[in-house]
């Protein structure tokens, strides 16, 4: 393991080469003085400043640095960049910020309460609408905005997590159906409004109500028998509905609702049995993945004429080993690939699959840590780039196999393998000279990560990971 003392050496090397992408990879791990030096490389040209101002992978501290002397084009990019930190957003609002910039900041996930309070009295209604739609908008701001009576502000405010019962009651009394639908689904919705929503003839409002996790089980059980299938589906999906309430879809005429039943956990045995024999393929596909399925039904689903149902059975965590061995010999490659992905597959199944030449099966074996090392090497040399990539994701791939992938012609495979824990120091350093900027970025980030001390031992070092 290299020591912290080597990180400045890496920084020196990156400064010498003048590669902005590699410098960006190391930037979050560098000491403050080194960061300044790296900034000179990363932001060396107007083109690079524009590129990184818009890059969601750029570290927050770098975006903050760009915001200090940003012109119009940079400011717009920073306002649109989801990684821009609050400090930079606040800077964008100083001076004569354009309406576009104010609107993007008002909608930004990092805009804080102070910014949103200021923007809530903006002269542009577009900006105020964006504030109302921001999930950080505090209750006081929403109260002020709702008083305007603007339909789009109301609809946005009705979705706000900080909208309290009082605001929601006001909006319910004055809002159109979409606003009311949002209120019916809101966890802070007042009880009286919940009762009114249940009695509404508008199925949209009842559907949103049925999705509300704050709704009582009595109301939900009534919605489970609603005449509209979308309302029943929303009720079945609601996590409050469980146990005996998730009972018997025998009389359920809608396959869409039965599909949702099949995805729920803790189903009663007789419900599972009925769903496993459902005439709808998708219902059987979902129930075949459900760990509540007993072994005898699992065997029946493993022999289903529909290939996707057998695949789902192969992916079911509760599928017993003998059944997995049978599925390893399935005529459909997609089913065999489902078995090949399983770390708990029995030896017999894995052995059977090792000679399988289908690309899906090879890729699945490439991801499975139980695959023998010799097979990893074969897969890492496969002609299909997507099959080879499977090994790059496998943490069990050996040092030599990972080194092989560091020479892969497909750039994305080199990007992924640059982050592999078993990639040796030498091939990782070699990737710093890769023709692809993404690879150099990933390699420099991984090298710097390895050389940086763990945060607890860093003595106050601030490592600002990419957002």
């Amino acid at each position, binding site marked *: 393991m290299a020591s912290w003392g080597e990180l400045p050496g890496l920084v020196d090397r990156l400064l010498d080469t003048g590669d902005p992408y590699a410098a960006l990879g190391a930037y979050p791990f560098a000491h403050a003085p080194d960061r300044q030096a790296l900034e000179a490389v990363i932001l060396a040209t*107007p*083109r690079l400043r*524009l590129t990184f101002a*818009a890059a969601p992978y750029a570290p927050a501290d770098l975006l903050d640095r760009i915001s200090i002397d940003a012109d119009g*084009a940079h400011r*717009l*990019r920073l306002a*649109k960049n989801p990684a821009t930190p609050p400090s930079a957003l606040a800077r964008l609002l100083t001076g004569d910020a354009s309406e576009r910039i104010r609107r993007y900041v008002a909608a930004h996930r990092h805009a804080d309460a102070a910014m949103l309070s200021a923007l809530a009295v903006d002269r542009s209604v577009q900006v105020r609408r964006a504030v109302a739609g921001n999930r950080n908008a505090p209750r006081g701001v929403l109260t002020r905005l709702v008083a305007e009576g603007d*339909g*789009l502000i109301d609809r946005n405010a009705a979705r706000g997590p900080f909208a309290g019962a009082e605001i929601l009651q006001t909006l319910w009394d004055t809002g*159109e159906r979409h606003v009311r639908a949002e209120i019916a689904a809101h966890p802070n919705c007042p009880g009286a409004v919940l009762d009114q929503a249940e009695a509404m003839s508008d199925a949209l409002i009842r559907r949103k109500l049925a999705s509300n996790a704050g709704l009582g089980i009595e109301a939900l059980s009534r919605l489970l028998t609603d005449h509209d299938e979308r309302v029943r589906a929303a009720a079945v999906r609601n996590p409050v509905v469980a146990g005996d309430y998730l009972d018997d879809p025998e009389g359920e005429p809608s396959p869409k609702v039965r599909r949702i039943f099949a995805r729920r956990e803790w189903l009663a045995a007789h419900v599972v049995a009925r769903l496993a024999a459902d005439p709808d393929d998708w219902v059987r596909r979902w129930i075949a993945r459900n760990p509540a399925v007993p072994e005898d039904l699992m065997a029946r689903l493993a022999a289903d004429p529909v290939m996707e149902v057998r695949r789902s059975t192969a992916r079911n965590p509760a599928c017993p080993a003998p059944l997995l061995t049978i599925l390893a010999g399935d005529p459909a490659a997609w089913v065999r690939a489902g078995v090949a992905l399983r770390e708990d597959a029995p030896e017999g199944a894995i052995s059977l699959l090792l000679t399988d030449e289908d690309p899906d099966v090879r890729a699945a074996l490439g991801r499975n840590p139980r695959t023998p090392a010799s097979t990893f090497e074969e897969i890492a040399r496969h002609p299909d*780039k997507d099959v080879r990539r499977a090994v790059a994701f496998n943490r069990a791939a050996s040092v030599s196999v990972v080194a092989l992938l560091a*020479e892969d*012609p*497909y*750039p994305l495979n080199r990007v992924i393998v640059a982050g592999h824990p078993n990639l040796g120091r030498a091939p990782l350093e070699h990737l710093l000279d*890769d*023709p692809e900027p993404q690879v150099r970025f990933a390699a420099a980030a991984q090298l710097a990560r390895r050389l940086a001390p763990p945060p607890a031992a860093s003595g106050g070092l601030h490592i600002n990971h990419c957002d």
Partner: protein
Amino acid sequence: MKILVAVKQVSILDDEFEMRDDGRGVDADFFEKDLNEFDHFAVEEALLIKEAAGEGAEVVVVTVGDDEADDALRTALAKGAERGIRVWDDSLAEVDSIAIAKVLAKVVEREAPDMVFTGAQSADFGHATTGMALAGLLGWPHAAVVSKLDFVPGAATATLHRELEGGLEEIMTIQCPAVLSIQLGINQPRYASLRGIRQAKQKPVEELDLDALGLGGGAVTSASRVRRMYAPEKGQAEIIEGTVAEQAARLAEIIKELRGI
């Protein structure tokens, strides 16, 4: 056997961009440059023919561009082309595709290839005229938007498929040598290996000016020029809310605004 592939380094615009002060193009800070996507397919088609032909076959890539365009040539060389030719003169900056075809025609006369490929169009300007103009200047047969090709080096003809409107496909035979513009999807372009990329740095790229091609003294001029480039104002949309009467009133208001009443 030699196939000449004309390639172009195209501009790929950022989502947000600004125009140059002269209003005739985009400020260079706001785009990246890369090998034209269509040209990846043209290069791949040439490489597949070369590899099937065995020894003695050669793929030569040519571009008209300044030294930044070397990157486009090196990309093609890394995939397996044998050598590159780059033609440049400052007078060629911003010339049209017909002028480019005049330059390429001289390169074709010099190289005497068995076939010339171009991309069906460039991804930035999309004129789709370079290959057609080149064939016209050479007096060679030409087929555009080729989606399948059966060409055996040395044969007097090639058979090809072309995509037409309405999902139609045309099969035609063409006399060789010919100029073919290659459509996306005709093959699956390869990625250059790292070894190929390293080797490409050592492969020869011949740099030619217009005098070397006998085109000095203002022989290459554009038949057209860009007067202005701009982003048209985007249309506006508005969701009209309220009661039916309120919606009708707002709609009437909008109609009056648009008609200037």
